[in-house]
């Protein structure tokens, strides 16, 4: 049974008991920003909802936006309802000083490695994850390489001028 983005949004409003932090629709892809504590109950409700059936987690990845003071680190979740071919994207943002997000492994086993990857690259701590340790990088690495403050090039090099070759 197909449904519109507005219906999902209405359900989200009712479920979290108020207005989400922000809502946008880039390329018809409903994107909702939430507070971290609203995330797990909402996803559980969307997953078990008889009409929506967001039973498949397509993707989970991290974000780092240093300009957003107090909300520097983010996690993006994408869910797909195969019964009606609708996707939604949920975002949560946390301060870089205490990057604590509830773990999605409570609802989807596929979140296990994706959260480990996000922790590995962004240092976001997933509360309740069964085995949160680095996955692609070496275990004794002491920084989180995808954060914007870590440059791509070796810092020893001075033959490349940033204004010319950098971003």
């Amino acid at each position, binding site marked *: 049974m197909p449904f519109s983005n507005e219906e999902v949004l209405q359900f989200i409003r009712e479920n979290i008991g108020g207005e989400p932090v922000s809502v*946008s629709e*880039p*390329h018809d*892809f409903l*994107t909702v920003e939430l507070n971290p504590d609203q995330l797990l109950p909402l996803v559980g409700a969307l997953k078990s909802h008889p009409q929506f059936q967001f*039973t*498949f*987690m*397509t*993707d989970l*990845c991290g*974000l*780092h*936006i240093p300009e957003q003071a107090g909300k520097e680190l983010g996690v*993006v979740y*994408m869910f797909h309802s*195969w019964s009606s*071919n609708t*996707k939604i*994207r949920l975002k949560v943002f946390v301060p870089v000083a205490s990057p604590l997000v509830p773990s999605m492994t409570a609802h*989807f*086993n*596929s979140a*296990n*490695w*994706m959260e480990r*990857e996000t922790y590995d*690259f962004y240092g976001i701590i997933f509360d309740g994850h069964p085995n949160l340790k680095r*996955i*692609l*990088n*070496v*275990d*004794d690495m002491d920084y989180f*390489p*995808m954060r914007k403050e870590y440059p*791509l090039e070796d810092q020893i090099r001075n033959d490349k001028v940033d204004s010319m070759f*950098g*971003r």
Partner: protein
Amino acid sequence: MQNLASFPNPFNGIIPAEKEEFVNDLTTLNLGPTHPATHGVFQNILQMDGEKIISGVSTIGYIHRAFEKIAEHRPFYQITPLTDRLNYCSSPINNMGWHMTVEKLLGVTVPKRAEYIRVIAMELARIADHLICNSILGVDSGAFTGFLYVFQEREKIYDIYEEICGSRLTTNMGRVGGMERDLSDVAIAKLKKFLKEFPPVYKEFEALFNRNRIFMDRVIDVGVLSKEMAMDYGFTGPNLRAAGIDYDVRVMNPYSSYEDFQFDIPIGENGDTYDRFMVRNEEIWQSLRIIQQALDNLPEGPYHADAPHYYLPEKQDVYTKMEALIYHFKIVMGEIDAPVGEVYHAVEGGNGELGYYLISDGGRAPARLHFRRPCFIFYQAYTEMAKGMLLSDAILVMSSMNVIAGELDA
């Protein structure tokens, strides 16, 4: 140098209670990182009770190349060669998926002819990918002949790539806005030859395997994946369809004119290794059908969009026309800013839904680019599936899942 004893024991808490007293009788086996049977650089540390796997831990990341970090520092067209190296058995699919993502961000409409050429390239890539997976599955079960048979045919696919784009394995095929050149007469001739000569060879391959008693005994009811587990672990592609769920991005969210073609989506029943093999076999036939239709109905017209800001002009024009020279310079030097936006685009890769999540902040490079790599997501189920299995069966299951190290590690 860190003391070896200070590393945490990877098996802490995962040995079942009833096996706890035998823990000293168990053998630890390192399957990988470089083992002929893993067909890629990744490791499984297995706890074995004789021939039986009690538990396992996957270690990945041996060929991690930080593509997502590199991509934040490259203009869009320089990211295409990075995508080649994700699933290197089907590079054109990765390339096209990336071009389509950027086109979605820019709002560029690609002409039909370019889309049909892309479909041809993508389906060839799917055939090449499935050929490798299925023939290697044969090798792992002790049948080398089929592998040699179809690898000859794979070479012919690579010859066609070469005619289309000039390279074979890491193709860097197509450009943002279309293809870099039109389908040449030689390419069309080679394609027609392939479409004529490949089916009998593949029939022979199928005759070697499909009803082969030895092969069937090795693969039927081995590594059964239920629908629920497949969805829970984020399986997509042939592995998911073998478990009985008919999710295919080409049908659910058609891209690049896939809605124009008639083809079937094969699905399995039991989700075992045999079903995965048979689903891939059938997908090869369906891909051939799509290529035949695309070639028969190849529309006339331009092979790239009119998007001068992003599509490199003809070399001849660069020498003679001022505008072309300016655009050439700006594109090559990465001086063109992309619009602000947030895009997710997925294509049906060789292994499943290959997604690109792109956030642009208006700079010349992405602010964030995330690859949804199907291998990375479903491979975490492997140790779960391998529990209680014989080692020789576990090797077959790994082969039939078609885990590609490049896609695993990005």
